[in-house]
């Protein structure tokens, strides 16, 4: 999969030259009839009245524009939330599904790579219209047509084969845990990453990239769990990955399979609750989208994000630190756990419990800007990297402002945010360091 940054912008569209085989080859076999039939099927069977109300209610007032970091960064109405609807489902509905393969090609780029499904714009619309939902419907249509960016499609395929997003095979998973356990035992004798313990208080789940690229996060979590004397476990078989790119490609059948696997993995072990690592989209998939698709109003087992868990450790005085982290920090609120779950105050409690110098970035909490990587956009890979980083200009401005006030470290309790912010920091020469809460806690932990 070669990286190409040769995109050039055409005059009339916000879309640069498409250089993605998943989309280009995906549309090759499409006929107008097939497109129309899939569209009708999705709109009639799956969207109900909600989509029509959304599209019909919009009065094109443009108030949502300043809610969207794409618009703010690129200053082009095509990137405004309403503009994206206009170029996709509004036209589809107006034409009653009679659109061309070329249209689907453009619509796929917009839906998959020009909207982070961050839901910020919904707070600015007088009617609360949720453009993220409309973009998700567009993605669902594209998925059913087989027109999906190659990288994220491959990730969804990995999910379908391995139940994790990184093609981590069953043996590689356990091997990685053993390797992390061994490393940790060099520093802390008899430390364990306990596998498959029935009746544990806490089932710890992570996302696919952790064993693949960021295994030190599992190491750090193990050290923290051991330091606080947690009765915890991880599963040796699939179900350990809480992430979900199928939710973002529009493959909801696969999303259901993944979420069931994750919940049953924890419930078969009769864990009291699931604590998940620092990931935002995964939280959305287990706490909102995936559980409901399976028939649960709420998750069948208590499931909390690492922010919540770490905060609880400090509130209950279960954790001892040597001293607070004293490099000035700022905090990036991940959309899915702040706007989506309201964890922003707990995140601030945690920053204050762990760091001595906290500088807010503005706007913040539920008004924070997305890192531009969310909603599966970063997972669409190198062909869309430059465009993604350009749409992060507003985020860069926000970071630089916090830096000017003295912040040197950005805490981002989400994997995708890390990926997105890393690129933004590099591209705009922001010069700040990125950390997870787990990194900070591990660093200041007072170990026996």
């Amino acid at each position, binding site marked *: 999969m070669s990286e190409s940054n040769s995109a050039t912008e055409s005059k009339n569209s916000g879309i640069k030259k498409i250089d993605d085989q998943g989309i280009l080859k995906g549309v090759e076999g499409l006929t107008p009839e097939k497109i129309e039939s899939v569209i009708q099927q999705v709109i009639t069977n799956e969207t109900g009245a909600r989509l029509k109300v959304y599209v019909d209610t919009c009065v094109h007032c443009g108030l949502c524009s300043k809610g969207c970091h794409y618009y703010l960064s690129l200053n082009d109405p095509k990137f405004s939330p309403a503009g994206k609807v206009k170029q996709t489902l509004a036209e589809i509905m107006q034409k009653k599904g009679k659109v061309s393969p070329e249209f689907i090609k453009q619509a796929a780029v917009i839906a998959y790579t020009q909207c982070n499904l961050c839901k910020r714009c919904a707070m600015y619309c007088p009617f609360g219209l949720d453009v993220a939902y409309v973009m998700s419907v567009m993605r669902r249509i594209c998925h059913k047509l087989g027109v999906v960016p190659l990288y994220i499609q491959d990730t969804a395929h990995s999910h379908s*084969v*391995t139940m994790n997003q990184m093609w981590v095979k069953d*043996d590689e998973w*356990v091997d990685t845990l053993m390797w992390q356990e061994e490393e940790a035992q060099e520093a802390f004798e008899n430390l*364990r990453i306990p*596998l*498959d313990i029935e*009746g544990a208080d806490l089932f710890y789940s992570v996302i696919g990239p952790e064993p693949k690229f960021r295994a030190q996060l599992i190491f750090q979590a193990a050290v923290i769990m051991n330091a606080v004397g947690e009765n915890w476990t991880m599963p040796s078989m699939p179900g350990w990955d809480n992430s979900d790119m199928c939710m973002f490609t529009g493959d909801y059948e696969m999303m259901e399979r993944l979420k069931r696997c994750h919940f049953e993995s924890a419930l078969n072990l*009769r864990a009291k609750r699931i604590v998940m690592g620092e990931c935002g989209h995964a939280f959305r998939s287990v706490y909102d989208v995936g559980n409901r698709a399976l028939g649960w109003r709420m998750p*069948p087992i208590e499931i909390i994000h690492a922010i919540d868990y770490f905060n609880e450790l400090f509130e209950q005085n279960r954790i001892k630190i040597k001293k607070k982290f004293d490099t000035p920090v700022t905090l990036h609120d991940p959309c899915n756990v702040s706007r989506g779950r309201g964890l922003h105050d707990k995140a601030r409690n945690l920053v204050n419990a762990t760091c001595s110098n906290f500088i807010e970035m503005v706007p913040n909490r539920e008004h924070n800007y997305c890192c531009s990587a969310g909603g599966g956009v970063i997972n669409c890979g190198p062909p869309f990297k430059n465009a993604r980083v350009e749409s992060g200009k507003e985020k860069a401005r926000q970071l630089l402002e916090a830096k000017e006030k003295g912040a040197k470290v950005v805490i981002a309790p989400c994997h995708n945010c890390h990926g997105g912010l890393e690129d933004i920091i590099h591209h705009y020469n922001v010069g700040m360091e990125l950390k997870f809460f787990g990194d900070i806690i591990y660093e200041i932990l007072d170990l026996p």
Partner: protein
Amino acid sequence: MINCDSWDWDKGKKEVGKFSDWREKFSYIEDISFSPDGEKIAAIVKNEDMEFTVSTQSEGAEPETWETGYDKVWNLRFGPDGRLSAFVSDTGEWKVSTDDNTWENGYDFIWNMRFNKSGVIAVSAQKELSYCAIINDVPWENEFSKLTDMVISPDGQSSTAVIESIPVLEGEIFKFRGGCYSVAVNGDAWDRNFMNVWKPSFSDDSSHVAASVRTSYNDYYIAVDGKTWDTPFSSVWEPCFDPNSQSVIAPVKRGGKWFLAKDGAIFWDRPYFQLWHQIYSPDGKRIAAIVAPEFGRWTLAIDNTPWQITFSDYLTDPIFSHDGRLACIFKDRGRWGVAVDGKAWDSIVDMAWIPVFSNDGDNIAVKVKKDGFYHIALNGKILDTKYEYIENPIFSPDGSTILIRGCQGGSYNRDVISIKGGFSYA
């Protein structure tokens, strides 16, 4: 099924082992568990040479440690036949060791230990990035580039798994869509490939295999011995075989709702918000499944009629008694309980495990957790005795007594109690 006729069913408690003995002897002890008959306890420990190994203890004896020590040991389990097995590794080579006897063949990694009812062991294995299954130290003749979902047949003679039949590299999304996965039975792949395959399972007579497959993002089927049902569905869950015929039933999704299908046709015509974990009664005449008759409400349906009682959070472990009673575990508003034949027990607990019926179906015992301690619940009431740890209870063959294997105050005890009463309740 555990054959427990020959076990000691005399009423009374004996101490099998003491944690303090282990503490004295070992610097490192993992979780201690009981043998099925409760006569032995075992755990992974470190020996004097600081190697990982296994120790066991029986009544009146000192902990007895395996002679061989290893770099690593994991997945220590008693099989249903009472033999004790684990994955062990020396210098990076993994084997199965059963009662301190290791298999001949070594692999780069082994995992997913599966027992049939009489204790035959199958595992998944990887060597030089090739994958296969092994039964009793005999590997498949064919190897594959990927292997998941391995299971052993009821007769212990066969194993099956999902395999990558056409090697596909990361990023080859169009090749993937063409179908690169299949099922292998004893190493022989079905002659048809699919986009995905999940959860193959054997028929009761071990001669057929069924699995869930998809041939495109929109077409899900059940495949039996490599041949798909005629009709695609928008999704399916894992199938199971009718014990009296070669028919296959599976949950299928159509028009956004779930149904039960048999041999490709809708069999339970009532739409559910969810339907899974279907099981046959032991005589094969009735079917029960976990269903959500309305959004966010869970119950069991028996022959397509849901129980009236529903639960908000979760339902699991449906199980028939030999005479056709039906029980399950539920979670409602955060608390767990047991439901039998459509009625919930009054006792609500913090956690409950699979219900255990006596052979005659008259009595039910359940391992539960309440206020930080484990208890046995019997026929709706929680017995007062507290444990720091217990295994699932087992009824004697005549149903008059229960074997409780639990730890109290650091003592691992085997206790046989009469079900006739004289209990105090929690």
